[in-house]
Structure formats: C-alpha cells, structure tokens
C-alpha cells in the first residue's frame, strides 16, 4: 500500500507531475543524446585517425617520430617484417610505407604535401585510400609514375585527372629529388585536410625517386580489434630491438585525438552534472511544494503512528516514481533520437574546416554506449533522490501538532 499511496499521491496534481516529469525527460534525453553525439565525434576521430594511415600500431626507426627525415628510415625492413610474420596473429595486417614531406607543384600552384609511397595491395587492406578513390584508378603495383591526389588538392591546384604533378623532396644523398607524376586517381576523405595533405605513389616509385634502396619510413599494423593494440605492442617490444626501433600504439601516435578523447570522457560527466543541477532545482522545488501542500496529511501520518523515517521514505518513494518515469521516457526518446540519426548523422559541413583541426568529421553519427546511458540514469536517480531528501526530511521534522495546525 506504501507504493500505491506514493503512486496516487504523485497524480494528485497531474499538471505539476507532468511539468517536473517533462524536465526530467528533457534532462535525461539531453544527457543521452548529446552524450551519444560526443561519443560519435570521439569514435569518428579515432576511426579517422586510425584509417588515415595510422593503423593500430606503427613501427619506426628510433628517432623518426621526432625528426621524420629520410635518414631516420628503417634500414632493415625485411628483418622487422619477418618478426611480424612470426609474432602477429594471422588476422593482423600490416603494410610498409615511405613517408616524407615534399613539395608538389604544377604550372599554376606550389604547395607542401606529405608524399606517401605505398604497397598498393597491402595498403588497401589497412587504410582508407583504396576505398577512397572516387575518380580514376587506384595505384597498381610497380607503377612508377602514377599518383593519387585528394579532391581538395586537385581543386586547389586547379588541375584534373591525367595532368602532371611534380613532386620534390630531399633524397638520401641530401640532394633535391624530383619526379613528374601523372594524376591517375582522385580520392575523397572524411576530412578536407586529409585531401590536401596526402599524395600517394607506389613504394617502389618513392624508394627510387628518393634513392632509398629498400628502406622504408614506417610499418603500419591493423589488428582485428583496436583494444588489443596495447597488448600486441607490448609483445612486439619484447622481440623488436628497442635500441633501433620504436613500437607505438594509435593512442601514442595520435596525442591530440587521445587528449580530446580523455577530455570528452570528463566533459560528458560534467555535462551530466550541469544538466542535473538545472533539473535538481526543479525537482526540489516541486517536491517541496507537494510536501507543503500536504503538511497536514504528514501531521496525520505522524498522529496515526508513522515514524519520521517512514515519512522520509514515503516522500522519497514519490520522488523515485517521478524520476523513474522521467528516466524511462527520457531514455526511450534519447535512444529513438540516436536511432533516427544512425544512418544520416548530423551534417556539420558548414563548420567542418574548423572542426577538422581536431580531427572531427563533416558528419557526426551518434554512438550509444550502454555505460553512458546507465551513468546518465544513475546520475538522475541518485542525485534526484539525494536532493529530494531535503523536502522529505522537512516533512518528517514537523511535529504532528505543528503540521495539523497548518491550513
């Protein structure tokens, strides 16, 4: 009957109950939906970071990351690749690359780019580039003069498919090496910055142009699950000579992304708290109003022999019902909103240039994490009950005579 009493009491003033429930619904919805958007941004940033040539693990010659010059290339890639073949599981993929800063120019423009020499077949399995070619063709192994450029670079250089693009960079002998390539393919990427930054040629073409022999700049590894990166990297560090090589996970390779992810983790909980504080005032106010309206009734309960603690329990039970109803509806709406945007996402093209600075995509797809939904509901429930304790204790503190004397 306690539950019946609490349930019926919250419907004594349906308008007030609906108003406060709406506040809880909006609060929970905002927590879940905006939390999902933030998670979506995070997931997209990680995905972009990993797919844009990072992979889950990378191996470099020691010193390359601090000073990515040609002298800091991996000189014995066969030895490292043999170790990878021996120690990586069969579903892990890897590809070696040449990666140097270069100058691209044509008759109209000149600009800095990152020249990436790839093994077309292996690279197709581990990074975005093979699927990103939207015009022309992907590179074929052994192609010495083909180049793939981004759509944004193509536009910037006012050129088109089939035209020449000259790349210049410093070779192994510290001389300027240059070679003219023909634009064989154009790629689109999630971020315009990627389209402007990277140009792709075959690894053989890069090694020949830069007089590198069989040297490479890096090996990128893609695992079946990104969560395994740290464990696998630790295993590799055991077998790959640490004095010559650095083995790093995506977490270490993308410090900006990881910093933003860490910040987002905290920001989500701060966001929950901010919403709750706004909602909390409404909850306290409503419960307090309901308590004062029924103060005579609480006096009666006391007169009939209800202990003060039971009155606290009674008021908290009413709060619990209000919060739970709001949480159920708010969570439902939050999940529905995420579901509705699952395919289309939210297009932020208009802001994408600024957002790309931190690796965000043009389109945000919300991502639901059960932990966040549970956390949002727990914040509302636990803090809601805590703030309701104030009016509940107030109701219990009146003596029966005081309470029943109230009109």
């Amino acid at each position, binding site marked *: *009957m*306690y539950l*019946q*009493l609490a349930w*019926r*009491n919250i419907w*004594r003033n349906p308008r007030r109950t609906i108003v406060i429930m709406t506040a809880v619904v909006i609060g929970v919805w905002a927590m879940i939906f905006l939390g999902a958007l933030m998670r979506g941004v995070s997931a997209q940033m990680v995905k972009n970071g990993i797919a844009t040539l990072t992979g889950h693990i990378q191996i470099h010659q020691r010193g390359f990351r601090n000073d990515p010059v040609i002298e800091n290339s991996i000189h014995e890639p066969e030895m490292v690749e043999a170790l990878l073949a021996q120690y990586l599981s069969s579903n892990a993929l890897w590809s070696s690359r040449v990666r140097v800063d270069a100058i691209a120019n044509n008759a109209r423009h000149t600009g800095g780019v990152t020249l990436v020499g790839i093994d077309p077949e292996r690279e197709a399995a581990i990074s975005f580039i093979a699927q990103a070619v939207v015009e022309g063709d992907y590179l074929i192994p052994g192609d010495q003069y083909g180049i793939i450029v981004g759509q944004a670079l193509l536009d910037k250089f006012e050129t088109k498919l089939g035209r020449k693009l000259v790349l210049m960079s410093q070779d192994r002998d510290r001389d300027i090496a240059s070679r003219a390539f023909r634009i064989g393919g154009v790629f689109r990427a999630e971020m315009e910055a990627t389209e402007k930054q990277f140009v792709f040629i075959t690894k053989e073409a890069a090694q020949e142009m830069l007089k590198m022999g069989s040297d490479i700049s890096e090996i990128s590894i893609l695992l079946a699950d990104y969560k395994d990166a740290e464990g696998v990297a630790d295993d590799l560090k055991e077998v790959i000579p640490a004095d010559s090589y650095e083995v790093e996970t995506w977490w270490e390779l993308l410090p900006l992304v990881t910093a933003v992810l860490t910040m987002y983790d905290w920001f989500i909980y701060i966001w929950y708290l901010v919403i709750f504080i706004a909602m909390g005032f409404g909850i306290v106010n409503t419960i307090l109003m309901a308590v004062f309206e029924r103060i*005579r*009734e609480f006096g*009666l309960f*006391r*007169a*009939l*022999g*209800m*202990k*003060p603690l*039971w009155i606290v329990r009674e008021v908290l039970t009413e709060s619990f019902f209000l919060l739970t109803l709001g949480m159920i509806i708010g969570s439902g709406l939050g999940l529905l909103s995420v579901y509705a945007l699952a395919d289309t996402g939210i297009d932020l093209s208009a802001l994408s240039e600024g957002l790309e600075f931190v690796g965000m995509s043009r389109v945000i797809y919300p991502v639901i994490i059960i932990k966040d939904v549970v956390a949002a509901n727990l914040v509302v429930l636990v803090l809601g009950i805590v703030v309701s304790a104030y009016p509940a204790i107030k109701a219990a503190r009146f*003596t*029966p*005579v005081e309470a*029943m004397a109230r009109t």
Partner: protein
Amino acid sequence: MNIVECRDVQKIYRQGKVEVHALRGVSLSIEKGGFLALAGPSGSGKTTMLNIIGGLDYADAGSISVNGNQIDRMNQTELANLRLHNIGFVFQAYNLIPVLSTMENVEFVMLLQGVLPAERRARATSILDDVGLAGLYHRRPAELSGGQQQRVAVARAIVSNPSIVLADEPTANLDSKSGEGLLEMMREMNETKGVTFIFSTHDRMVMDFARRLVQVRDGLVAEDRVKE
C-alpha cells in the same frame, strides 16, 4: 484502574514575546473504559490537553502517564510507537487520506503496525460493517458524506484495538442526526469493546452522552462530574 494519569500539567504557547498559558497545572485521572468529555469554551485548553495525552504535543511541566507509559519522557519515535499501538484519533475535520479508499484508510494503521494483508482486509471489512459502511469499501473520502467520513475515521481509530480513542470535536462538522448516530456508535463500542473514549468538545450533545464531564476553563479543571 486508571489508564491516564496527569499531574500538574502545564503548557505555554509562545507567540513572539507573548506567552499564552494553555494549561496551568491540570491534574486528571481517567479510568480504563471511561467515556469522558473535556468540555469548555474555545481557548480553554481542552484540545491542548487531548494533544498532550495523545503524545502529539509535549507538556512544559508536569507528568503524564498513558497506559502505564510515562510519555513526558519519551522521544518522537517512542511517542509514534505509543500512538500506533495504544491510541486512536478522531479529528474534527475527519482527516482521512484522500487518495486512499474507505477500506485502505481503515487498513492504514494496521499497515503501519505490520499486520498481514489478509488479516488487515478481514478486520477492516468487519469494522466498516460495524460502523454501517458496508458496501462503501472502495469509495474515496470525497465520495462520502461528512457523517460517513467521520464513521470511517472512527473505524480507523478503533480497528487496531487501541486502549484509548481521543476524539477532538468529532461532531463539530456534522448535523445533529449524524452526530447523534456517531456518538451512539462510539458509546456502543465503549460498552462492548471496553475502549476508553476521551472527547474534547463544546457540543451539548457530546456532553450529554459522556458518563463523565470535565469542564476546563482558562487552563484549569473547573469541574469534574461523574453522571449517575
């Protein structure tokens, strides 16, 4: 045997700097099974006396014993326990719980006592039948007349077999016919079940029904008369 013993009970209400002496040293013994009315004009102290006997309010001085319990030394929780198991209340304004049905209102005290649902239901049904409310079990208070509501309040007060029922102006909001019916019902319960009834009233009819009449004036017992 006395069920209530009051010795030199004093109560002062303070409203800012003004002190109102509601009780100035009341001594009163009430025998078990009594049917007694505390009568007097408004502000005489009769309701204060009733509240103090019922443990709803504290006295500023004096000693009060109810059913052998020295209640002036009890804390709020102990008083709540005493009220729950020993005292039934009937109020002038009925004071039923508006969201509960007639049956649930009567069951409520037993719920607080921890009586099992089946027994609660059986006892509530029986007492509602006794007070003439058979068939109205599922009505909410707002769907009952004043007389019917007060009968529910009486049923609620006696269903848990208390030693004493304290009734504060129980007939004040009723017409004379309903009031008389209610008083007859309470007197019958007093006679058949042995429940002690203490009324505070200035209703002549209640005074006529009472077997003992205590007149309170200016916070003192002015007259204490047992009727033949």
